[in-house]
């Protein structure tokens, strides 16, 4: 840890050229915005793909205007083919999980705010930081390139189960170069995340300013720090998995392909591999990935809730310990994705137990959030609404985990829309609510302008009600045994479920359209928003102790000294009911 007498020099001078300032920037704030921007592009792209899929599911034979322009082969006459549906499904999942849920709450907000919240001038390794974004950006381009090759994007889903993903073009469209691009893209993405995670860890441990002890770190910084530890281990496993997959595909190895497979009448020239090896490697990453998406959102929401409630959480330490417990346990539960995979059935019980146990720290955090509202002076601005919405959807997504954690219920529910409902609610929607809460909360800091609160509230109500209308019925479909990843529902037993699908599709169109309000608000407010007051939310952490937006070195050459914990709300301070972390005021008698 550094102190004020040995300040960490900003290793690089403020850039003047456009390229250095806005493109190949070493400034963590610009890099954070670049990650956020990439996530923003990805989330709208992913959402449009989901619209196309939802349209196709309920109006299967109807032409979609303009779709032919995207792919002649995938949509002859504008009507989506089954394989193109699967291509869109793969791209939707990959974009959302990697380029949205990992990029925005962790790499985006984390890059921008972690250094400021600890009083540092930049990340520990600014060049690594720039490299991590640009590698991620190349990963994005490589993935998107698959739309423009004749074969189209891969059809093997975001999980890319072998041998479907490993054997090449014999297995179907998109599985030649489309799948290669996917594997290269995800491999590159892993490199970017590994560089980023290392940087976050080093920065948090080494660059804290004087007085910023670990217990004085804001809860959002704790969350980013824990997430970077999770990410370092998770992406370190997915990266070699992608390398092995590429080797199977282009170098004739057989890591994931056993002997004797006959695909499209061709006996495959492989032997000795195991499809389960891919599943183990993938889910060893894949389950912690859920927490890579949700832990930063938990941190952001906790941070915002305290500023909105005007009081600290019942115990932030309990939340830290619970988040660490979640991170630790997340590495022991990957097998619950594989209960029915053909692995030894005894192992199902072994994986089931920690899966059920992980609900304990998650429940503790949730109950701390709800319990902390008791006795609060809650301010219902847009960031607070999204934070409260986060708590609600996190509960909804969490309780369905109870079902899937039990191998005996997985026999019925695995592979159905119940699973889709569960992970969309707990990982997708909850994390998106965290991102949106963070956006409304920190936009004034990042741009110097406020977002429009009325538009923000309209956006919240439409989104909050909308996501329940979309994703709660997914669970009902699962109870009825509706299989997922079907491009068309041809089975007799699925016919009575079509009206419910129609309802979901319409809800998805409306909720998606509501996001345009957000986009408008974001762009309009960036240029025409009301100027932001110095500390619009009356928050305590260090990002509010500097100008909006902060100068290149974050604090204009000042050496910040931290005198207080980050959660001094509901106290009698000199300027209201809170005390800034760098305030020279003495510690109040009864703090957190």
């Amino acid at each position, binding site marked *: 840890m550094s102190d004020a007498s040995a300040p960490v020099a900003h290793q690089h001078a403020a850039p003047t050229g456009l390229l250095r300032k806005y493109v190949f920037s070493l400034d963590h704030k610009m890099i954070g915005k670049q990650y956020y921007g990439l996530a923003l592009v990805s989330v709208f792209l992913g959402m449009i793909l989901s619209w196309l899929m939802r349209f196709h599911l309920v109006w299967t034979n109807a032409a979609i205007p303009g779709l032919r322009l995207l792919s002649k082969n995938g949509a002859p006459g504008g009507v989506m083919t089954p394989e193109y549906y699967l291509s869109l499904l793969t791209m939707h999942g990959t974009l959302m999980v990697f380029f949205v849920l990992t990029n925005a709450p962790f790499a985006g907000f984390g890059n921008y705010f972690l250094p400021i919240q600890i009083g540092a001038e930049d990340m520990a390794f600014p060049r690594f930081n720039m490299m991590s974004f640009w590698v991620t950006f190349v990963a994005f381009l490589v993935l998107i390139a698959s739309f423009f090759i004749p074969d189209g994007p891969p059809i093997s889903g975001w999980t890319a189960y072998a041998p479907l993903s490993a054997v090449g073009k014999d297995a179907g469209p998109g599985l030649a170069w489309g799948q290669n691009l996917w594997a290269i893209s995800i491999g590159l993405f892993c490199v970017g995340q590994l560089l980023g995670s290392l940087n976050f860890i080093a920065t948090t441990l080494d660059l804290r300013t004087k007085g910023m002890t670990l217990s004085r770190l804001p809860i959002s910084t704790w969350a980013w720090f824990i997430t970077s530890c999770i990410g370092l281990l998770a992406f370190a496993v997915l990266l070699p998995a992608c390398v092995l997959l590429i080797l199977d595909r282009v170098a004739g190895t057989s890591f994931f392909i*056993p002997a004797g497979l006959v695909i499209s009448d061709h006996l495959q020239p492989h032997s000795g591999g195991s499809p389960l090896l891919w599943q183990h490697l993938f889910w060893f990453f894949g389950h912690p990935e859920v927490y890579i998406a949700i832990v930063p959102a938990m941190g952001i929401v906790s941070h915002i809730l305290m500023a909105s409630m005007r009081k600290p959480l019942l115990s932030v330490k309990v939340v830290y310990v619970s988040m660490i417990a979640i991170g630790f346990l997340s590495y022991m539960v990957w097998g619950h994705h594989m209960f029915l995979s053909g692995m030894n059935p005894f192992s199902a019980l072994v994986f089931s137990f920690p899966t059920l146990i992980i609900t304990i720290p998650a429940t503790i955090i949730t109950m701390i959030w709800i319990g902390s509202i008791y006795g609060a*002076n809650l301010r219902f601005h847009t960031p607070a609404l999204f934070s409260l919405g986060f708590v609600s959807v996190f509960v909804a997504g969490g309780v369905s985990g109870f079902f899937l954690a039990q191998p005996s219920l997985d026999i019925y529910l695995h592979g159905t829309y119940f699973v889709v409902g569960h992970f969309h609610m707990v990982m997708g929607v909850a994390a998106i609510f965290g991102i949106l809460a963070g956006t409304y909360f920190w936009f004034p800091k990042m741009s110097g302008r406020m977002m429009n609160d009325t538009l923000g509230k309209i956006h919240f109500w439409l989104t909050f009600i909308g996501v329940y209308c979309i994703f709660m019925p997914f669970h009902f479909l699962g109870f009825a045994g509706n299989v997922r990843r079907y491009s068309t529902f041809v089975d007799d037993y699925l016919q009575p479920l079509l009206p419910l699908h129609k309802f979901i599709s319409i809800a998805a169109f409306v909720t998606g359209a509501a996001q345009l309000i957000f986009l408008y608000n974001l762009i309009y407010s960036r240029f025409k928003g009301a100027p932001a007051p110095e500390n619009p939310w009356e928050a305590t952490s260090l990002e509010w102790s500097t100008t909006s937006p902060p100068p290149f070195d974050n604090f204009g050459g000042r050496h910040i000294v931290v005198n207080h914990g980050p959660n001094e709300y509901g106290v009698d301070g000199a300027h209201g*009911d809170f005390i800034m972390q760098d305030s020279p005021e003495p510690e109040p008698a009864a703090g957190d």
Partner: protein
Amino acid sequence: MGKLLAVVLLVIAIGSAIPILMHTWWMPEDISSHGYMIDKQMSETMAESGIAFVAAQLVLAGFVAMFGDKKNGRKATHLPGGAKAVVIAAIALVGTEVLALGVFGKDAWAEVYFKKAATDALPIQVQAEQFGFYFRYAGPDGKFGPLHPDKIDEGNQNFFGLDPANDVESRDDIIAASLVIPVNKPISLMMHAKDVGHSFYVRELRIQQDFVPGLDIPMHFTATKVGKYEIVCTQLCGLGHYNMRAYLEVKSQEDFDQWLKQQSQ
């Protein structure tokens, strides 16, 4: 704003609970000997999770309605008992639920996966491929002939890669496109994938199991009700995944014997 949020949370909680309580969309009638255990476990989990969901939403609704900012400088207060009470309550509530569900849930799993198939079970081999299921019965000799992947020839309907010219056991094997079984008779499936991963799912049977290329996976069950049911694939297997299906036909023993006789002719 707090009251509005409370009302919306209330509507969400009730709106989600009604279709569940009314079983508007629910599991079809169980037709297996083990399914009642899964159904019981499902109902218990539904009750516990449902109560947890509704209770959490209602408490959240209550608190946001009660503790909005009054702008009168009210001093913030804390939940009686504080974090300690919350932690104890969470561990007690969830811990009990976890233990109860975990312990009672193992029976159904054990019935399907730990128990061996009955010795008199009817062995049937099922092969999954892009995009269909084929079923093989051993024939009068009670033996399955060996598989030769290089002999697979869809054009000549040699789906399994049998070599009856050289393998005596293969000559009487019966291949069918539907899974036809006698009612109340234990069935022992040997699951084999020809190309990529697939899955075998029959809702009514409360059975779902992946096919894994390179592994032959055993699965057993007993169907208790005569009828025709859909077998679908639940593991993404390629462009025709949505259309990969077959029928399970559960017949009386006499009808089954007659069917088998017809097939072997």
